[in-house]
């Protein structure tokens, strides 16, 4: 296994973790753009653009793109987050050149008006789908309540109104501003021919014009608050919370992930034993998310509406207890065993490894082997967790609850 890196003259970085002999090879363009880079007028454009990237280029129609992705048997998709838009495909090694050709071409989409109008309907359907699905958009509402006016408070999907109003020209301008090669990383993992990858990238991406694509990173001033939203058709009550946690470049992020596991993993955590094991809550958990310059922990409680208030109070008590008394060494050791095993098992597939390698690079400009990552988790101490809690108290949270309840 070997890590390789190259940079084209126009600023496009090419990185890969090469594992000769692996069954597959995974490739992705990581574009450093997402909801946080939008304005009110174009809310949702990053995600809409992600869809439009599959709708053809000057060399290919939308049907050509879809057909070619299938011809090489690729397992491909894309996603948009607050900070990134990622286009990825995993193939057998023999298809490396074809998939890189295709993905590279897709990164210069034609953005045709007819395609734009048809795909707009698909985006509106996607918004409707999430409107019907727990927690009914409450994640967006909680991010907004916690972060606004910081750009991380923006919705990834946008709203029906913002998507309806969006014009192709606005999307083209956004694309021109954000899809600069200096703002994109081509990442690969698995059975990759790196020299060939760089040569192909130079052929197909070398002509992309470079320009600055700055990101505004104001300080996040998070706010505590409580928001009750009504959803009459829901049977259960869904309560989400956010609190401040380490950012993506923060050395405490390993401790943060371990603490979230101890307090709120799906099974075996404090919240599991207190609220889920008894069958009182359908789900109660905690996780953490890292962004550039800031981070959050998030709690999620799903339970019958009549029990919501009491269970929320008990969840609060669990968090307060951890804040006051910390966690035990046994809990820390179990969380390490669990997380490290997950990391090692997941890394067996190049398709998974691609995201670890790519995210590490795009967020931190760091490459770590699986072993190095595991060692960093293993090195976390109870003192690290204590310091984390002092810096980021679990008791300061913004709450959004949605469901049939009309009062709390």
């Amino acid at each position, binding site marked *: 296994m070997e890590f390789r890196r190259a940079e084209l003259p126009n600023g496009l970085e090419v990185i890969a973790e090469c594992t000769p002999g*692996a069954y597959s090879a995974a490739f992705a363009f990581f574009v450093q753009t997402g909801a946080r880079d939008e304005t009110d007028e174009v809310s949702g454009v990053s995600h809409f653009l992600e869809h439009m990237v599959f709708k053809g280029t000057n060399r290919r129609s939308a049907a050509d793109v*879809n057909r070619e*992705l299938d011809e090489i*048997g690729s397992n491909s998709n894309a996603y948009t987050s607050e900070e990134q838009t990622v286009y990825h495909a995993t193939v057998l090694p023999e298809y490396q050149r074809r998939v890189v050709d295709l993905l590279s071409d897709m990164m210069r989409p034609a953005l045709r008006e007819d395609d734009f109008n048809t795909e707009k309907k698909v985006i509106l*359907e996607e918004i*409707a789908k999430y409107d019907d699905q727990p927690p009914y958009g409450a994640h967006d509402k909680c991010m907004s309540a916690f972060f606004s006016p910081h750009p991380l408070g923006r919705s990834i999907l946008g709203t029906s109104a913002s998507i309806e109003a969006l014009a192709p020209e606005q999307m083209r301008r956004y694309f021109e501003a954000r899809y600069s090669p200096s703002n994109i990383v081509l990442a690969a993992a698995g059975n990759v021919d790196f020299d060939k990858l760089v040569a192909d990238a130079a052929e197909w991406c070398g002509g992309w014009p470079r320009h600055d694509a700055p990101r505004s990173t104001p300080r996040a001033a998070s706010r505590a608050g409580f928001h009750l939203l009504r959803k009459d058709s829901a049977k259960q009550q869904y309560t989400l919370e956010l609190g401040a946690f380490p950012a993506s470049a923060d050395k405490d992020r390993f401790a943060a992930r371990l603490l979230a596991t101890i307090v709120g993993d799906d099974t075996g955590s404090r919240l599991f034993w207190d609220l889920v094991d008894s*069958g*009182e809550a*359908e789900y109660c958990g905690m996780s953490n998310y890292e962004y550039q310059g800031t981070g959050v922990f998030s709690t999620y409680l799903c339970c019958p509406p009549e029990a919501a208030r009491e269970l929320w109070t008990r969840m609060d008590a669990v968090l307060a207890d951890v804040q006051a008394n910390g966690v035990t060494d046994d809990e820390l050791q179990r969380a390490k065993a669990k997380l490290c095993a997950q990391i090692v098992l997941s890394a067996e597939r190049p398709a998974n490894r691609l995201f670890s390698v790519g995210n590490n690079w795009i967020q931190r400009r760091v490459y770590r082997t699986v072993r190095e990552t595991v060692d960093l988790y293993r090195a976390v101490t109870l003192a690290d967790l204590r310091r984390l809690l002092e810096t980021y108290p679990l008791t300061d949270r913004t709450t959004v609850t949605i469901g049939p309840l009309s009062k709390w």
Partner: protein
Amino acid sequence: MRVIRLAARSSPCFRESPVTIHTHAFANGLTLLAEPMPWLESAALTLLLPAGCSRDPDDRSGLASLACELAQRGSGKRDSRQFIEDLERLGCDASASVAAAHTSFGGAMPAENLGETLDIFADLTRRPHLSDDQFDDARQSCIQEVLALEDELSTRALHRLRSRHYPSPWGKSSLGTVPSLEATALDEVQRFVASQYQPTNAIMSVAGKFDWAWLLDKVGRHWGDWQPVPLAVQATGEPLGGYEHIPHESSQTHIWMAYDSVPYSHPDYYEARAAVGVMSDGMSSRLFTEVRENRGLCYSVSAFCHSLRDRGSIFGYAGTTTERAQETWDVMLAEFQKLSAGVTDAELSRLKAALKSALIMQQESSASRTGSMASDWYHLGRVQTIEELSQIVNGLSVDRINRYLAAHPVRKLSVVTLGAQPLQIATA
């Protein structure tokens, strides 16, 4: 003991040794299947017990799920907490689920912890406490699952479709209902476990990094003396079929359909699978192209093959806003009907590329391999190697697929919609 040896793969890979699938039939009815994947650092296991929800009495639906939940709340020398904590220490990503035919326990873990995980699974399956002090909490957890399903609209509609399309007891929802769970007593769970957590027709599959002789010895010591119990014969009823609308004030209407195909064990199964692949696998598939790409009617549209042991079906799904639901249904149904006219060389060629990739990449994961092995054994009574499956895929032809399609047109539909308005749907 039967050992199948096959030639090494021709594609580039770490491995030079021949692929070996070990099988061992214990006298008590348990079959052990094992495929060493020495290039991995992990191991995974799946254990299928003849404790599916098809064995739930009609007035005790959810019984198998409640038994599965309660069994995990203490077994052998471990209480409920120790059971979970010990699996965590071993880095075992454990799972448990109930389907029509089986209760399934599984786990993937660092290879060196396979032995200790097997120790825990032996307690779980042979020595569950099923104790009174955990019973109420276990039942309440099962009730929570039923309540949560109320808000998962697409899944809820699918559960209803399965119950209409398959004959009783094969279309039952494993979750049960709140009244049936509330009516279930501890001794009923204990009796269910005594009769269904047993080795008759049980299947254990293991894949990953391990030594076969060591595994056979370990499994033999844990489960070799497990006493079999005769399995009750199950009567199969008549399917309901037809169309049902579930009213719900939602933005989208969820449309599920099913019609008969062939089961996994049928010689034409891969022809059926290929036809569904043309409909739904990949971004150039017919449903994605016609329903989503060309018309923008929905975000999600798909189809898949589903198989019981003696019958198979093709399922289709679309989720779309109320005012576009009728058009979505019309377009989707028209695509299924058009399929009878046959698939093209280009479509089959793309599908083969996708299936070949998926097969080769299955070797990257012990967990995905162990699931396929157990399923093969249940349906076929043997395990197909990756090489064998590759040959099947290579052998698929347009002619054979089209012959299958001509013989199996879309007819006798079962349809369930969930949303604000019912649709105009003819199911005959």
